């Protein structure tokens, strides 16, 4: 009975770590889009929003991104010290999902770059200072979204 209780506790603890990691990754990805994306949007008057507002978004999003990244790293460090839980969190299935997520990020970035390139045929004066940060944010944030939203079984 003791063994069963231990297994259940370990499994639950690992599942909590997985849920926490997913939450942190989403916050990190959204904050990154807010931080880097707003840098690009500040170069234009997109959505009728003045550049000063995008600057505020940038200054608010950057600390959120940094704190969430530190928390993700802290969780990795915590798991390094607790191997019994770590092997349940990062098993071969989660590694396979992570690899698929990075492939997803690659395709999102590729399609986004191709879309911007295609758009230049219709609008030759596209400002790359606006689009490059948005492309970067999309490519970096896409893996976090794919692993979180499409990683469910």
């Amino acid at each position, binding site marked *: 009975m003791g063994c*069963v209780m231990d*297994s*259940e506790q370990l499994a639950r603890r690992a*599942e909590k770590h*997985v849920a926490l990691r997913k939450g942190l990754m989403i916050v990190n990805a959204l904050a990154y889009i807010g931080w880097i994306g707003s840098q690009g949007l500040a170069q234009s008057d997109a959505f009728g929003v003045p550049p000063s507002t995008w600057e505020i978004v940038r200054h608010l999003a950057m600390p959120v991104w940094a704190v969430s990244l530190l928390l993700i790293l802290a969780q990795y460090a915590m798991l390094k010290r607790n191997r019994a839980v770590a092997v*349940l*969190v990062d*098993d*071969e299935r989660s590694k396979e999902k992570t690899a698929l997520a990075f492939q997803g990020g690659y395709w999102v970035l590729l399609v986004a770059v191709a879309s911007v390139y295609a758009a230049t045929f219709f609008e030759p004066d596209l400002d790359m200072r606006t689009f490059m940060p948005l492309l970067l944010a999309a490519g970096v944030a896409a893996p976090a979204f794919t692993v979180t939203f499409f990683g469910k*079984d």
Partner: protein
Amino acid sequence: MAERLRNRLKDYRTARSLTQADLAVMAQVSRKTINTIENEVFVPSTTLALKLAQVLGVRVEDLFYLEAL
């Protein structure tokens, strides 16, 4: 001829009165991985298949088999 990988993981696990959490800890994978293998959603690597067979004390061929479609 097309074939599908099937398994008897749930049968062997329940015969030994193990929960999915017990088997997960013994095989060092998540409970969800055990669940998805049992439901034939996730196909484990050879290493994990051998490990599952080892912890359950059976041959890997008894645990996993091919079924013609």
